[in-house]
Structures are given as C-alpha cells and as structure tokens.
C-alpha cells in the first residue's frame, strides 16, 4: 500500500461562550484537525484500497461509533463534521457538528481528512433526554 503523503495540516479550536442566551460557566470548546494528503488512487479505478486505511486505525477505548460524513469536492469546500458523545451515541446534549474547510484543499489529486472533538455538551443544551451522567456504557449507544 502507498504511504501517506502529507501536504498540510490545519488545526482549529472554537471556544463558545454563549449562543445568544445566558453565558455558559465554562466555555464549550470544539476542535478539529485537518490533514491534506495525496490521494494515491486519484484518476483511476483501483480495486484493493483497504490497506490504505490502516494508518487511520482508531486509538483509545471510546465505545460509540464515530459519526462521519464524506463528499467529493474542490478546493475551499466546506465540510460539516458530525459530532456525538464518545461512549454513547444517544447522548442528546452532545449531538453537534463543526464546519471546517481549507481554501486550497483538496486539490484534484488530494484528500482532506478531518477529525473533531469537543469538551462537552452544546452551550445551554435543553433538548432533554439522555445526558452524559446517565450513560450505562455497555453498548456504545446509551
């Protein structure tokens, strides 16, 4: 399998104090790291591509599925990265997303990869249901 050729890396941290309502005691923080890599399969059809994802094997012991989105796009494309709680997908206060993008990426033979993480629930979340304190942590869902 081809090795990963990194052209550029971008990190982004958003710190959110309020959403128009009361100011949160602790600001909510969302971070994303973006990597612009060469697409070793650009421009041709390749059957066996699985090995290329070995460099992205997950770390740590988080239980929930990592939510994802993907698209084919040109330089400057904006990407909404979906976000959920790391141990229980149904924690409603943690459903979120962060928009990211890089003016000069992805070029035609590149891929833009993004990974996002946050420090907690949305600011002033009040949509009810499962909270982080109620997680059972057995199935990755609740």
């Amino acid at each position, binding site marked *: 399998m081809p090795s990963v050729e990194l052209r550029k890396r971008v990190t982004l941290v958003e710190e959110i104090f309020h*959403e*128009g*309502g*009361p100011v949160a005691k602790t600001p909510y923080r969302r971070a994303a790291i973006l990597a612009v890599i060469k697409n070793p399969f650009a421009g*041709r*059809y390749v*059957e*066996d*591509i*699985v090995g290329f*994802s070995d460099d992205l094997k997950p770390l740590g012991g988080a239980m929930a*599925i990592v*939510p*994802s*989105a*993907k*698209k084919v*796009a040109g330089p400057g*494309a*904006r*990407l*909404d*990265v*979906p976000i959920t709680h790391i141990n229980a*997908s*149904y924690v*409603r206060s943690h*459903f*979120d*997303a962060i*928009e990211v993008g890089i003016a000069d990426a992805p070029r035609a033979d590149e891929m833009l990869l993004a990974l996002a993480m946050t420090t907690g629930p*949305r*600011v*002033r*979340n*009040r*949509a*009810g*249901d499962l909270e982080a304190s109620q997680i059972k942590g057995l*199935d*990755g*869902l609740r």
Partner: protein
Amino acid sequence: MKAKIRKLVTVVEETRLEMDRAVEPPTRRAAAVAVIENPFAGRYVEDLSPLIDIGEELGELLAARAVAALGIEGPKAESYGKAAAVGENGELEHAAAILHPKLGAPVRKVLGKGAALIPSSKKRGGPGVALDVPLGHKDAAFVRSHFDGMEVRIADAPRANEIMVAVAVTDSGRPHPRVGGLTKDEIKGVDGLR
C-alpha cells in the same frame, strides 16, 4: 405550533459512473429540505417544545417527500440522515430541538424500520450555506458500504430568522464500495449497530 414553511426543496442524485466505471444499478439519494420561520429568532427562550413539535411534523413531511422523490416504498430505503442549519439570528439549540427529540419517530414510520441512530449534523449559517447531511444504514449503523454524506444548499436560505431542515434517504450505499466491514447482507438488525 405548526411550522411556517417558506419553501420546500427536493434533490435527487443518481450516480451512473464513478471513475468511468458503470454503477449498476445506479446509486440514488434524495434529500428533502424545508425552510421554516424560526419562532425564537433573536431572543433566548428557555422552553423549546414548540420547535420539538415542529421536528415531529417535519420528520414525517420530509421523509415522505424524500422517499417519493426516489420513487420507492419506504421499507426499500437503505440509509438515512438529518441536518439543520439555523439562520443568523437563531441558536444552535434550535436545530437540536427540531432534530433530536421527535423528528426520528415519524421518519422511521415512513421507512418501515430504522433500528439505527439517524446520523445528524447542525450549524448556524447564512443564505447559501452548504449543509452536509451524514448518511448511515437505517437498520445497522456499522454497515460500512452505507457511510456517506450528501451536501445540500439553497441559495436564499436560511435567512436570519429561518431554519433549514433536511432529511436525506437513499436506496443504496456508495458507488463501488470496497472497504470491507459489515455488509448489508449480514445485518442482524436488532441493536441498530450490526
């Protein structure tokens, strides 16, 4: 409170060739999008239950329209997703109130099943903002061939006092899936994951 709908948009994408290779049958995905007035724009309101009810109303409306756009019966749908973009004068939590408490049940009713979490994204943005609706298999979230996303945008929405709400449905996974993992033939469909 009923949704005050300014506009409904339906998009169908059909992919017939990917890297010059025929996709047979073509993969198809549809998104139905509603542009509604945000009743709480410009002020902080603690109780969001009117938006929660609007979520229920839109879940049924948008899922039905997306399925109709594909020309299939609800149970033939394979993956789904939801997303909302709140206009400038709204709050991210307004999107949460629409998407999470009640929107899912009527979507699942239209599709017959839907054991899996409906993947979602949300943001605040101006008119023409691009909204990426994440997609996952409706009965088993780990079906790898069906992880996808669909970008939708409307040139004149959301205005500052509006919310744009999207439900996307497919009758297929990605074109030429070949990254292994759980396939749709192996779905147990009990826990929503596998």
